[in-house]
């Protein structure tokens, strides 16, 4: 019964979404306030209905209702409760429902909290959101309905893919979608601005928090996915340049560019047209990612052609929204008056460089991801574009960006002084260079590349610290005054410093693990010892174990550090999930400081158990850095200056600053 209610709620949500896309738009056009106001309650109710549908699906999973096709295909009665719940979005239909749920959530948030928005802007934004929701609700109801019943109902389900039976599935897709779909708000604001033909600095101030939130979620989502693949897939890689990964990385790259160009627009009223275009492109890349992942086109153009219903539907959505928005942009962009002037060497100029490098990197990844599809569609030949290509093209584009990051915040608006900024960064540069040189001579395995990379990561971190130190005047004013200024510093400045330092941490981790990693592949018998990274691993035994819905062979290794001190054990196992007849490896991972020992086991052979051991120095920094970036985004988000309608505090702060000067 609840399944039918969920299905019905989804249909109602579609009806409301259609109202939401028509009424406010019409109201804004004819200037009718009551009609414009329709968007708000409709958006909130629509969200409640999609939430009810989603709850109904989760309930069906929790109750193991195998009369629902989707539940039968992806669940099993013996599955632990957590994985029954997360299994609801561990499949195509459920994940699309989650996508729409988050879309509706963002629409409802704009409706509920956008009190200070001009009524026409708000009406247009909600209308565009409604239009996107209508398209995807139609897609779900016509091609990907999770509520289809099965008659007669089977007694047992086919279980969820074992790889997905992991806490990662509980966190990764929701975070990722919060990011992906969050950019729909920037998109809707951009389209609304184009419809009105009017855009100003206040627009950027409204858009920035949404972009920032989406960006922070996407950062977390990608990092979580990376760590999940790292520990779950059993070969210790953290990034594979897989098309699916690229699909999530593309909106991140252009979203990062958007975040920065929106700053220029808010502060200096410049780069308006470019910011609007980026807002459109960022969500377009999210849509493209959804298309690539959901249509099956990635496996092969032919797979796509043999079952095109879903793919063609999403492609149509894609063409409608991207094409429509870009057409609107082409017609209206010229009407947006250009804003403030600036010299190339200035904060604005630095942010333009940031945008140039980020969009070029995004274009490179995009073309690399789509090129095999294009070649196959045009010539029928198959080529591969994989990690070696991306490493060769993406990294050289990203390195100059990393080098330039610390300069940005130190340059003045309008006209900056590069030499002065460089002088103020002297200490950071010297400290980073010295660390690089010392590490080169200290570590016997270190290559020049590793030393350079470490110096680069530290340069970002020290650069971010320098920015904060200069802002509070350390060295120029007494410590007590500096401390007072630190407390009074706007949160967004901490956010910037944190995000840039986080980038440095991630860079450090990537460099350390790619250049200094040690690996050992060997066969071991019980009692044998393997030495790696200064640790000794003694293979103790291989023993069977039975879990709730799997059986496994667990290999136990005793770990000892330098001097023979016992550091406990590492357990690595090979699992077998009977319901799907699928094996998985569960890597054994131990963290020491910021580094990790990573053990995965293979088959038993005549000469012993095949074991692959990695020493991964500083590997955790890759994800900790992303976490710091995410925190930076969140801290920025709580800056009062970003919230519209708090003039009282602002005036006081300005007055205080005036007194201080």
């Amino acid at each position, binding site marked *: 019964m609840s399944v039918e209610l969920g299905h019905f709620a989804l249909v109602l949500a579609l009806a409301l979404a259609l109202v939401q896309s028509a009424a406010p738009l019409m109201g804004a056009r004819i200037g009718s306030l009551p009609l414009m106001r329709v968007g708000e309650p409709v958006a909130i109710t629509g969200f409640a209905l999609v939430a009810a549908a989603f709850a109904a699906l989760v309930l069906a999973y929790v109750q193991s209702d195998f009369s629902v096709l989707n539940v039968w295909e992806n669940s099993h009665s013996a599955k632990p409760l957590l994985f029954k719940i997360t299994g609801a979005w561990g499949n195509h239909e459920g994940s699309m429902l989650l996508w729409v749920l988050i879309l509706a959530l963002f629409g409802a948030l704009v409706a509920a909290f956008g009190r200070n928005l001009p009524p026409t802007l708000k009406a247009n934004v909600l209308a565009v959101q409604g239009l996107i929701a209508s398209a995807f609700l139609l897609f779900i109801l016509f091609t990907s309905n999770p509520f289809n019943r099965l008659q007669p109902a089977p007694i047992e389900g086919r279980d969820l893919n074992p790889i997905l039976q992991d806490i990662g599935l509980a966190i990764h897709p929701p975070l990722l979608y919060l990011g992906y779909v969050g950019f729909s708000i920037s998109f809707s604001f951009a389209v609304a601005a184009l419809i009105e033909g009017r855009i100003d600095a206040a627009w950027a101030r409204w858009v920035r928090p949404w972009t920032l939130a989406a960006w922070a979620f996407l950062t977390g989502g990608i990092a979580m996915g990376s760590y999940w693949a790292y520990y779950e897939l059993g070969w210790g890689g953290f990034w594979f340049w897989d098309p699916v990964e690229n699909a999530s990385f593309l909106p991140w790259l252009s979203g990062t560019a958007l975040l920065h160009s929106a700053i220029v627009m808010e502060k200096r009223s410049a780069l308006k047209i470019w910011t609007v275009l980026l807002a459109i492109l960022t969500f377009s890349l999210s849509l493209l990612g959804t298309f690539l992942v959901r249509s099956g086109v990635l496996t092969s153009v032919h797979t796509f052609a043999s079952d095109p219903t879903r793919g063609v539907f999403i492609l149509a959505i894609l063409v409608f929204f991207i094409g429509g928005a870009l057409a609107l942009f082409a017609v209206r962009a010229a009407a947006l008056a250009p804003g403030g002037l600036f010299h190339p060497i200035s904060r604005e100029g630095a942010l333009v460089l940031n945008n140039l490098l980020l969009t070029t990197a995004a274009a490179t990844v995009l073309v690399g991801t789509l090129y095999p599809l294009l070649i196959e569609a045009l010539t029928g030949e198959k080529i591969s574009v994989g990690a070696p290509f991306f490493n060769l*093209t993406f990294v050289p584009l990203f390195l100059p960006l990393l080098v330039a990051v610390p300069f940005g915040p130190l340059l003045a608006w309008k006209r900056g002084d590069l030499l002065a900024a460089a002088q103020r960064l002297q200490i950071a540069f010297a400290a980073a260079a010295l660390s690089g040189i010392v590490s080169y001579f200290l570590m016997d395995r270190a290559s020049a590349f590793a030393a350079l990379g470490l110096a680069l990561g530290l340069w970002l971190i020290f650069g971010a610290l320098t920015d904060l130190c200069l802002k509070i005047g350390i060295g120029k004013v007494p410590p007590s005054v500096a401390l007072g200024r630190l407390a009074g510093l706007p949160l967004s400045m901490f956010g910037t410093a944190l995000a840039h330092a986080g980038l440095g941490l991630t860079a450090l981790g990537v460099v350390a693990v790619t250049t200094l990693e040690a690996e050992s592949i060997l066969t071991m018998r019980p009692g044998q010892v393997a030495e790696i990274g200064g640790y000794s691993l003694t293979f103790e035994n291989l023993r069977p174990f039975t879990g709730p819905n799997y059986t496994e062979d667990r290999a136990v290794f005793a770990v000892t550090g330098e001097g023979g001190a016992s550091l406990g054990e590492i357990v690595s196992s090979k699992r077998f999930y009977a319901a799907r007849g699928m094996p998985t490896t569960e890597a054994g991972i131990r963290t020491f400081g910021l580094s990790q020992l990573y053990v995965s086991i293979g*088959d038993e052979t005549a*000469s012993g158990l095949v074991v692959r051991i990695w020493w991964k120095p500083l590997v955790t920094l890759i994800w900790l850095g992303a976490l710091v970036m995410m925190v930076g985004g969140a801290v920025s988000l709580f800056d009062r200056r970003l919230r519209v309608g708090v003039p009282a505090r602002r005036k006081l702060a300005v007055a205080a600053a005036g007194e201080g000067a």
Partner: protein
Amino acid sequence: MKRAGAGLAAVGLLLALCGPAVAVQPDEMLADPALEARARDLSAELRCMVCQNQSIDDSDAELARDLRVLVRERIEAGDSDAEVLDYVVSRYGEFVLLKPRFSPRNAVLWATPALFLLGGGILAFLAFRRRGGKATAGLSAEEEAALRKVLERNE
């Protein structure tokens, strides 16, 4: 996030084919560490053709194993890196290369970063020049007069 990313649907297919276990087996490895290191680097550039975007170094598939052994045989026979790749391509086609070759067909692919950087740079430069020119244009005679008036008033 590889296959586990938003591409949940793709996951099952991939792993059913390739399996997640240890890829390179100890018995395949060459005794000479320098040759083995070359074999590993080359393996990372070759695609396991029955997998989705996985190198033969990462894949547990039978075919990947055969290719790894083949690469090592060629290296032991004295082939250079380029010769090994040529040999594998001659047998399996360019599909096997994870880094496509520089060829007219792949021109757009390889040129994208440079073209974008150059094009974007030129656009930014032109925008600066156009706007900059406007900014530095002198005041008109009327503006000069208005300015003088204001300054005189202040004195």
